[in-house]
């Protein structure tokens, strides 16, 4: 459709269903960011679909006045892939938690990324299983004490950005629930991207993992611990930009700008064909307790999956004509009796 979408207000994107997350949950601010962004994107509500799995995060679709499906645990990227292939005209968002998308759904996620299906995937990473009341997740830190790991968990966590880059993702970004503007910007960028985009959202679960991101996302900690990636700019942070990132010995490293000079800093380029620099940046931080990059790690152009599929259908119709049943039934030879 080429019609201009109707102008909407954030409230138009809200449903009549009561939002049922715990009071104080980070999911609320993500929802607000999304509802506020939507009018700006100038898209139609009926052309927008939210698909999710199961988890607290996965309740998201119920709160957006669009088409939506609350699926089964872990399978949202696969459900959405089918929908995106069948309906390349739709704007499809996939929502899930760190358990939903990195544990049971890890495989569907990485396959959707490598295929570059036109999906905007938001991973609400609270480093915990919220809905099932607080077991460790694949992004929980080693040693995490939970009901299923009373002596501390043994499992080294995934770094979702590294996983995505290892899986050929064409768009990878990270943001957090304490900065609405930044979230909106990342979601907007994901929306602009043609192909699979994944945005990791650091999300506070104030019931089972409160404060998990406080050391980097709290207002007073941001300057020192959030490294904002900005296209074409040297990567620099600190209250006065006193820290920076350089590549040294095949890895990214944090330095004092005073020590190396501004010119030595890595200039961020999300469009590099080779994902290695983006990967390096994903390794800068071992967790949300030390300086951690947010922003767009990678945004490259790569042919989108349904587009290729549509092209093949068109080519086939071009070559063979529109499918004719009568011809098909006779295609392996016939005889008369």
């Amino acid at each position: 459709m080429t019609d201009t979408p109707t102008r909407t207000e954030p409230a138009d994107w809200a449903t009549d269903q009561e939002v049922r997350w715990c009071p104080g949950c980070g999911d609320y601010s993500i929802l607000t960011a999304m509802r506020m962004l939507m009018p700006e994107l100038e898209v139609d509500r009926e052309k927008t679909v939210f698909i999710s799995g199961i988890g607290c995060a996965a309740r998201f679709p119920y709160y957006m006045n669009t088409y939506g499906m609350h699926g089964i645990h872990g399978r949202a990227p696969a459900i959405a892939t089918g929908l995106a292939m069948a309906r390349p005209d739709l704007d499809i968002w996939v929502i899930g938690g760190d358990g939903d998308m990195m544990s049971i759904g890890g495989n569907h996620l990485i396959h959707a990324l490598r295929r570059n299906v036109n999906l905007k995937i938001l991973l609400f990473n609270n480093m915990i299983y919220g809905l099932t009341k607080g077991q460790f997740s694949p992004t929980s830190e080693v040693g995490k004490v939970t009901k299923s790991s009373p002596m501390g968990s043994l499992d080294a966590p995934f770094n979702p950005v590294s996983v995505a880059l290892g899986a050929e993702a064409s768009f990878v970004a990270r943001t957090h629930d304490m900065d609405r503007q930044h979230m909106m910007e990342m979601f907007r960028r994901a929306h602009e991207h043609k192909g699979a985009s994944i945005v990791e959202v650091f999300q506070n679960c104030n019931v089972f993992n409160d404060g998990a991101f406080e050391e980097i996302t709290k207002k007073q900690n941001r300057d020192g611990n959030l490294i904002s990636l900005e296209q074409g700019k040297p990567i620099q942070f600190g209250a006065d930009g006193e820290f920076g990132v350089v590549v040294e010995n095949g890895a990214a490293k944090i330095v004092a700008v005073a020590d190396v000079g501004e010119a030595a800093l890595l200039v961020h380029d999300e469009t590099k064909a080779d994902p290695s620099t983006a990967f390096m940046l994903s390794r800068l931080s071992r967790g949300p307790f030390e300086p951690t990059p947010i922003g767009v790690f990678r945004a490259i152009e790569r042919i989108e999956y349904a587009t290729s599929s549509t092209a093949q259908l068109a080519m086939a119709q071009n070559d063979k004509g529109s499918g004719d049943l009568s011809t098909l039934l006779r295609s392996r030879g016939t005889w008369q009796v």
Partner: protein
Amino acid sequence: MTDTAPRELPLQELAEVIIRFAGDSGDGMQLTGDQFTSISAALGNDLATLPEFPAEIRAPQGTLAGVSAFQVRISDFAITTPGDAPTVLVAMNPAALKAQLKNLVQGGAIIVNTDAFNERNLEKAGYESNPLEDGTLDGYRSYPVPMSQITRDAVAEHGVKPRDAERSKNFFALGLISWMYTRPIEPTMEFINTKFHGKELVIKANEAAFHAGYNFGETAELFESHYEIKPADLPSGEYTNVNGNTALAWGCAAAGQLARLPIFLGSYPITPASDILHDLSELKHFGIRTFQAEDEIAAVASAVGAAFGGALSFTTTSGPGVALKGEGMGLAVSLELPLIVIDIQRGGPSTGLPTKPEQADLMMAMYGRHSESPMPIIAPRSPADCFNVAIEACRIALRYRTPVMLLSDGYLATSSEPWLLPDIDSLPDIGVDFHTGFNGTNEDGEGIFLPYLRDPETLARPWAIPGTPDLMHRIGGIEKEDGTGNISYDPENHQKMVDLRAAKIEAVDVPDVEVAGDMDADFCMLGWGSTWGAIDAAVERLQQAGKKAAHVHLTHLNPLPKNLEEVLSKFETVICPEMNAGQLVNLIRAKYLLDIKPVNKMNGVPFTTAEIESAALKAMEAS
């Protein structure tokens, strides 16, 4: 080519012949069988075929595991099975003889490539002495033919290297059999020229080998007679030869057109279902999108997603794949979206016998999901029937907005039969309308959309697809309020929804069963799926032996036809042959408390007509 003058041999008329071509996987037996089938079809015979592949991709040459076979039955009367046992065996090497001899009828003919019976091959086949000489073949009519040698000689003049020459020996065999059964030469010449287009040397070699075989039959003083099989009295019209998987794929494609919907297939390769994925992948010009998913769960999940988007959605697999799709199917049940799940049943449990058929997934189709999660089940009875049943499955899925399970099996999948092409205009219109407007009002009298407001007749909910203005709504697997579809934990609502989901499936419009055979018999055989041919043939034999027997064959397994209880109650004895441990029997007994008797077989080989006949006789005696 040497043109020798034909001997004058008697031409005997036969009602039917069952030939099994057997050789090493590399010997081209499938091709040979296929071509023999084609020319026989064109002659107007009725026919049925059954290929048999080795389980390994390429088992070591010359071994038992590497034997590939193709059975074809041709007749001058209407038949429903490829036949219990071949009457003619073409054995290209010792392994083929060893593997297949036990299948041959006593007194059957063996045409054997003597050149292959060297020490090395005998050893590979596990023969301690040469079966051509040690009396192994006593009781059969054996025709030793040095096929390799004659083929080599025949193709030599075309400049084919001796090693390559051997490759044509299947055409020698085809030529010989074509002579024996007075098949015409031209169609095979045409076939060779089309198939090997551009490879001149290969064409020449194969042509020469074919003629050599044909001529060998006429000239060698080995054969007492040759045979003729008259055309069968089949309904007139245009026929093609299809196997079940292809018919199924075509049925899916047809359903898309009949419903005026684009088709989406989410699938993960698995034997013996992969060919449906392959066939549908070739039909992109039908607007068919195939998606080779990362696993079976993604396959069904993607199909659910596509169904939400308004596609006619399929997922194809075999038993192990269905075992993985349970949760996804449960979601489709709860979402009440149309979806067709196709299970080409194979031997189990676990990886089991991937290339062998079974009918043992019926109970999983009924119950392989948690909680009460009812789904219609439907099963084709013959290769060509797969076409009709695919359309019927789509009809039910679309009309009732429900996932439907279609149960075929490895036997139907690969065996083939002539199919009188349907009149395309006579196929049913199975289209349904997407919902496009409000179907309710809120307290303020404003129009609203109720995604779970049901059609009073079918109990189906409206299918409103993304992109439809104003009808934005959310669906999900948590229990939902009737009407609004909003999440609801209310006890009464849950009971209501459970009941509604059950009632909707129970009320699917299923045609009544018809009784075949003798309506007034005391004895009846109940079947479903691929046992149809063997049961049908057994009924005929029983009748010929002066017994009365009826046959009730189910296409719809859930819900069962409304008249089934009444029909079955009329018989004194009902037996139910199934390639499982008694699954349909269980359903019938539980539902109607009718004491029907299981006749079970689970050895990876379909029932023979004789087995069913003897089970029938035993049951008649006992009663």
